[in-house]
């Protein structure tokens, strides 16, 4: 089963993370609520197998799961914002 990680910190919630999490759960995914990577402009940021998608809405769920989302940002850990800080 696909494991989807979505932040539940205040900013992610304010940007609609609960609706996105709920849509993934409805689509049959296991949703894990985690802290934020800190890339606020990408929240709600969806993480599946280390790959990021954001800012996501409930309407993006089908395309993300189909692997053809325009909101894909690649491997989160390799994003310049994260890579530069580590």
């Amino acid at each position, binding site marked *: 089963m696909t494991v989807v990680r979505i932040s539940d910190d*205040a900013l992610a919630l*304010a940007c609609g993370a609960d609706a996105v999490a709920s849509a993934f759960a409805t689509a049959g995914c296991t949703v894990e609520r985690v802290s934020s990577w800190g890339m606020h*402009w990408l929240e709600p940021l969806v993480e599946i197998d280390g790959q990021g998608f954001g800012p996501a809405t409930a309407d993006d769920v089908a395309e993300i799961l189909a692997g053809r989302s325009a909101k894909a940002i690649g491997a989160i850990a390799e994003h310049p914002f994260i890579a530069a800080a580590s």
Partner: protein
Amino acid sequence: MTTTDLAEIIARHLGREGPLLPILHDVQEAFGCVSPEAERAIAQALNMSRAEVHGVVGFYHDFTAEPDARPCVQLCRAEACQARGVEALVAAAEAAAGGRVRLATVYCLGLCSAGPAARVGDDVHARLDEAGLVALIEGAR
């Protein structure tokens, strides 16, 4: 408000270090306000002057002297939200609120990178544009 309810709230927090704010929050939550009678009882229980308690009640906008049954929408108008355009939304927000919703200005909800931001109850909302904010206000219950 009954004296028993108030005494119960005070007793619940009396043993804490700094019991005043927790008591005030619970009183506001339970009765919708912190009345002069409540201020008096709290001051007496905490061995404070009524003026001290009144000063705290008056300082924080979360505490009110009279109940207000209207839903409250807190709109952040601090620097970051101003930089992100909240001032351009205020007129529409006030019009949408009318007399039905209490539109309160707050200074920082901690969502600076995603403003304009607002809070309704315990829910926070960010990246608000005019349509989003108006819908939020109109949906506030």
